[in-house]
């Protein structure tokens, strides 16, 4: 059984981020794999899972989610190699520090050496980046400017801002992070399948769905 776990959707789920869990589970099930979606609410223990999902959130909830995760088993699980997809606020939370409510610096989980400062202006709009030769498409809406220290970016921005106008997100052995919501796994079936394949340690059979048409349409629009 593959367990996909959404962390604190009540706090980190502003931009339809629940769709990432839904897309991952559906794409696994349609290939005949057993997969379940669980979500961790306020006061719940963090369970064992094949993939953890962190979404976007507003300042106050982002702070609370960080504190809750800091006191949970999540940090040691990720240090031990648990897989994580982190979007927007989630991307910031895994880093060293981020800014909330003006320029107040807040300590992140320190799992990845990245630092997020308050950007000069908010980044709102379509986001497209090139990830290993493929386009990753979505929508960004955040006030951060993220700097990577010895960590690889996930992609190179071709439209929108991402971390800093040039790079988007980051990628470590077990973490995928991006500013693209969308939800990103629902809109980018190839990316969803790549993460699923890595998590399962197996090649996946091809799967055709209407998401392919949506992905092609967004690529056409965003690279025009």
């Amino acid at each position, binding site marked *: 059984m593959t367990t996909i776990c959404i962390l604190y959707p009540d706090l980190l789920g502003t931009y339809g981020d629940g769709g990432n869990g839904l897309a991952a589970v559906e794409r696994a099930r349609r290939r005949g794999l057993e997969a379940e979606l669980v979500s961790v609410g306020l006061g719940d223990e963090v369970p064992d899972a094949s993939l953890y999902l962190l979404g976007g959130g507003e300042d106050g909830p982002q702070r*609370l989610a960080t504190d809750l995760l800091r006191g949970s088993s999540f940090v040691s699980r990720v240090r031990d190699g648990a897989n994580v997809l982190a979007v927007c606020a989630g991307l910031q939370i895994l880093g060293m520090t981020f800014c909330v409510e003006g320029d107040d610096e807040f300590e992140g989980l320190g799992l990845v050496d990245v630092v997020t400062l308050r950007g000069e202006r908010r980044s709102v709009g379509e986001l497209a980046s090139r990830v290993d030769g493929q386009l990753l498409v979505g929508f960004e809406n955040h006030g951060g400017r993220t700097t990577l220290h010895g960590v690889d970016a996930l992609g190179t921005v071709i439209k929108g801002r991402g971390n800093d106008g040039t790079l988007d997100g980051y990628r470590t052995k077990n973490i995928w992070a991006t500013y693209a919501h969308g939800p990103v796994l629902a809109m980018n079936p190839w990316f969803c399948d790549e993460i699923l394949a890595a998590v399962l340690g197996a090649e996946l059979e091809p799967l055709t769905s209407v998401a392919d048409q949506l992905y092609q349409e967004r690529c056409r629009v965003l690279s025009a």
Partner: protein
Amino acid sequence: MGKSSPIREQVASVAVRTVNRLSRLSRRGSGTVVGGRVGMKIAPDLVSSLTSGRCVILVSGTNGKTTTTSMIVAGWGGSVTTNETGSNMPAGHVAALVESKNEHVVLEVDEGWLAGTLASTRPSVVVLLNLSRDQLDRANEVRHLAERWRKALEAHDDDKLVVVANANDPLVVYAADVRANTVWCDVPTSWLADALSCPQCTLAISHVGSAWHCTCGFAKPVKVTSVLGEELVIDGEALKLDLLMPGEFNRSNAAMALTALHCVDVNLEEAIRRVNAIPSVVGRFSVRRWNGHVLRLLLAKNPSGFAAMMATLPEDGSDVWVAINARVADGHDPSWLYDVPFEMLRGHRVYCFGERRLDLATRLDYARVEFTVVDNDSLVPTSKETISLLANYTAFSDWLARSEA
């Protein structure tokens, strides 16, 4: 630009009317925004001078603004000045205010413009319906909006202002509990996903039955108005709601509209009769014809609106049409489709229309709802039944324009 003078404001008022008339004649616009902008260039304090001496009620919130505004207008009776086309920012307010000089004024106000409109119109009553995620690319974050409302209400220096506020929406309560003179309404509020964590301290809010509270002390206020099914109680007076318009959310809207009218001493027995008799509001809930199909048009712009509207659909497995656009007025980011509980449509076949029909179809596919992407309108099979068509803002306007009464 200097301080406004009466002459300057008269010139400005004439300009507003002239430009809007030209805009309508040339069919370049709906004729409610351009003129208002011109007028405010000439006289920046135009809204203040146009509302001075009039009895104003403002209505704001994420969902139900237009409907509630219409209910207050109808319930008040007689001639009432209002921005009925839904142009709910200052230019639209100016256009409505110069078109008719009635003593009674009801204005629908965009959530982001509440602070300025409170200060400029100095209303008798402001109705705060609800706050939930909507057009986040434009409004950014909904808690931030609640904070702005709270600051505006705190800063407002008119002690006579009555706030009519939804006691079941923690974000609205957070904004309105800074006022001493708030009338709380205990109305059905199904969407709470944006206020699961306390707006005051961010900890989890616990809901027990219809009550809610946080450990920090932030809690549901004492009610004055309550709605239970069709029974409505306002300030101790029991009334019967029998709306022509469907849905629990419309009973909430009516309860708040009538509470606002009670605050300006309108007879509730007469008001409720007029509110009950409203058949539809600017095409919403209206039955229309298009290409041999009979359609019931339902506006749903965001997750809470969709959830409320889907709950009114017949459970007979009939076809449902959904139309989604992502233009400026809709918000460019359709990620909210994943916050809509489309799983409710399992058992129906959904035809996907609009510019973002592929986004919709993908969402429905992941929800295991049967769907058809409509690239060519003429290929949709005709049915004898009335079809429910749910559409977001600009898609709704498109369907209203292309269909006939």
